């Protein structure tokens, strides 16, 4: 468990955290401190280039002090002991505490967590990891003459966090891995591509890729060279778990982040406790989901991870919150306060967001469509919590005729619509379940690792 070893100087800073909290709480009713460090390895290679390098490390500390109305914060990359003490004194002395309700620091807890794994990547040398990537590249490169380049990107990130408040002293080491394989093809006129990605929190067991997956990847990339543009209109659609997940995340998830309630930006607020989706729909956000790319043990405000049922059986049950929004709104505090890094403020953010599994097989989902499209893979998505419009771009769609896939491809396919209409149109939910990892922004910034997914879904959507 080399990656789980806390460097000596970081441990020294960890030990100092409670005294920094005490220093700030001489002036205010509540304060907390977050220490973070990311490190790791990145390998990229393609037909013509290779690179093995550190992932860009981020190390820093955030001191947060509640002045009665809002948090004032100081953050720095320098973890020198005397520098940290003077930062705490400087922040405390600059505060102007105002009368206001105290924040609840939660029950006492002292604990360390680490990602469970079967094959520890840090026990393998960078040379051996490079060899694995080269092997994957070679296995793929020879599969089709249309291929002009194959890119392999491997990333392992060790994300360490230590949190202290007057009741809590928590630490976690999360190991986040990803492997992306990108195949670029040409027929001499058009250039197309497709990709395969494996990611999550855990060990190298997450990243196994079979020969069948490689062959499917290459044949699909070649098939996309002759993909057509979909005729715009409303369609019966079967969504792959990847597309289902982005609908859960973009269409609904962002609109139930409770800071959006505070800003009066969430149309969902008027539906709290009411039916918003088909009774077949249950949507969950769960930062404690084992192996998810968005998994963590506690959030950046020391709240221990647990699942939140956002929609249960079609009814909007509960939103996601951080300390500030739950305090202001007097709503439950969930473990969704996250920062891009110590350099940025914490916001309410999703973690692993997914539709719950249903009971219909994929064959039956497709068999129930007379004329429609099977949508697979998402390349982008964007939220619109106030207008409740939805934008998801699918890498490709495949025609369904009389309950069967025809092999006719359309690419790319834009999915738009009014969120309640889409969620209410869900008429069958698959019995499978897959999570896909990625990163999520708040608007166009504040990137954090997340996953989304669920089962296949059958619904109606506007494509273009």
């Amino acid at each position, binding site marked *: 468990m080399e990656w789980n070893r806390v460097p000596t100087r970081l441990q020294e800073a960890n030990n100092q955290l409670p005294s920094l909290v005490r220093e700030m709480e001489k002036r205010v009713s509540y304060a907390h401190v977050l220490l973070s460090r990311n490190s790791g390895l990145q390998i990229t290679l393609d*037909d013509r280039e290779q*690179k*093995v390098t550190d992932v860009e490390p981020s190390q820093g500390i955030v001191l947060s002090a509640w002045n009665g*109305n809002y948090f*004032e914060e100081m953050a720095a990359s320098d973890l020198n002991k005397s520098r940290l003490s003077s930062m705490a004194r400087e922040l405390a002395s600059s505060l102007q505490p105002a009368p206001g309700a105290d924040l609840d620091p939660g029950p006492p807890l002292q604990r360390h967590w680490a990602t469970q794994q079967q094959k520890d990547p840090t026990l393998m040398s960078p040379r051996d990891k490079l060899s694995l990537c080269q092997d994957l590249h070679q296995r793929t490169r020879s599969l089709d003459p249309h291929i002009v380049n194959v890119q392999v990107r491997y990333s392992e990130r060790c994300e360490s966090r230590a949190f202290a408040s007057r009741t809590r002293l928590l630490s976690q080491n999360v190991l986040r891995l990803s492997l992306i394989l990108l195949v*670029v093809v040409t027929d001499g006129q058009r250039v197309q591509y497709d990709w395969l990605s494996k990611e999550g929190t855990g060990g190298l067991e997450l990243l196994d890729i079979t020969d069948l997956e490689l062959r499917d990847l290459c044949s699909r990339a070649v098939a996309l060279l002759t993909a057509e543009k979909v005729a715009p209109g409303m369609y019966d659609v079967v969504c792959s778990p990847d597309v289902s997940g982005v609908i859960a995340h973009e269409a609904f998830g962002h609109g139930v982040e409770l800071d959006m309630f505070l800003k009066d930006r969430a149309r969902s607020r008027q539906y709290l406790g009411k039916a918003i989706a088909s009774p077949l729909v249950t949507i969950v956000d769960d930062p404690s989901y084992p192996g998810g790319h968005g998994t963590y043990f506690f959030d950046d405000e020391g709240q221990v991870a647990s699942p939140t049922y956002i929609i249960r059986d079609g009814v909007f049950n509960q939103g996601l919150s951080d300390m500030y929004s739950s305090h202001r709104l007097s709503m439950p505090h969930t473990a969704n306060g996250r920062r891009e890094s110590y350099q940025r403020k914490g916001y309410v953010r999703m973690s692993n967001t997914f539709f719950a599994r249903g009971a219909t097989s994929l064959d039956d989902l497709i068999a129930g469509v007379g004329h429609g499209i099977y949508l697979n893979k998402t390349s982008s998505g964007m939220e619109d919590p106030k207008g409740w419009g939805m934008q998801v771009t699918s890498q490709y769609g495949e025609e369904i005729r009389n309950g069967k896939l025809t092999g006719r491809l359309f690419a790319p396919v834009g999915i738009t619509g009014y969120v309640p209409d889409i969620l209410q149109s869900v008429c069958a939910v698959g019995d499978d379940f897959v999570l896909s990892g990625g990163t999520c922004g708040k608007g166009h910034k504040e990137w954090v690792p997340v996953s989304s997914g669920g089962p296949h879904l059958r619904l109606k959507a506007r494509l*273009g």
Partner: protein
Amino acid sequence: MLDAIIRTLGSTAGAHDWSVQQAEKRQTQYYVIGSSIENSRRVHSERYLVTIMNDHPARDGSSQARGQAEVSILPGDLPDLQARLAQAVFMASLTDNPPYTLAGPVDYPSVPMADTEIQAAPRELAEHTVEQLLDSLKRERGVRLSSAEVFIEDSRIAFRNSAGAQGGKQETGLLLDFVLLAAGDGDEMESHVALQRRRHADLDVPAVLARHVQYARDALVARMPRTGTFPVVISDEALAELLMSEGHSPLLLRSSAQAKYQRISPWEVGQTVLPESLSGDEITIYSNSLLPFGARSGSFDNEGHPGRRTLILENGVLRAFWAPQRYAQYLNIPATGAFGNLELKPGSQPFSTLVQGEAPFYHVVSFSAMSPDPITGDFVGEIRLGYEVCDGGTHPIRGGSISGNLYAALAKARLSRETAFLGDYLGPRAMLFEAITVAGA
């Protein structure tokens, strides 16, 4: 610390070439919900990005190879410096790439990048910007501020490499992100804007605010566009998003020497690169790093190349790939450094003519997100707000999407005479695309 790193690099076995970039940043961040402060932050960060090149015999026995690895040194890493650099040498030694040399010493051009107004009093400027928004909104009936975020940044960057290049620069940045809510008939709609500039004076808060007040009001009465193929005008921030995509533009990818070297770009110098013959206005593009206060400007880039203005496309013909030194040497073409700001030659028609064309057509002013696929150039974007012009009238629209291929669309585009400077884009304020697919009601 920079000197200590360079001294240690000099004595690190296997560090055959190197570069170091020191970046020290001070940030002031100010967040408001309604008229109340939500959060206030001060951030200081410092790091040293060290790139090490190691030369060694190629493993296939063909020739000498070069590997490259990066390591970031943070404050407090000094006791581990030798070990960190040695680890980077080891990682660089694992990979075989064709050899290349580094940019050598040159005189860097002077490019204004630091705003003294930002440097003087960042917190006061952040507060003033929000007050300016709130004051202006007092005069706008039915429209209020949902939230605002102001990020102010003051950076100092120093660069050195083993070929003797060295430089220093100061940069400032200001990000204003705000959301307006307009109320009407029991409903509310929003307009969201995020603007990034290097100089406070380039924000023009009153003008941006006035435009988005109108957008928020129009969103209240907007309807879905029709389905079909229509002329579409795209303007201002929406156009910059389509063309530049925050640096992930297909135009940048296909004109990059790295993509050419990797066989991802099919473009050839001297050939027309747009798939259909040009029937619209001339499409002439420069990479411009010399634009004062441009978001991607600089007197030198991350590898020590001097800032410059490079002709990339001339009337649809590729004139040069933009090329860092490594890829320039691989392709035997001139090195230009990193792509700067996208400068697009304006057209001949006034904006007013473009938006008074033959009806029906659409004018899109805001997308939910618009990121054309960097490899294929295909795009799909949901319309956050636009206008439908038909039968002599104009009506707001939202929802639905437009789709197409950027290269094909540019071949038949009309460009406005008026230009806009929008952070990393300097070019026509609007473009009229002849035939774009609209998916609507």
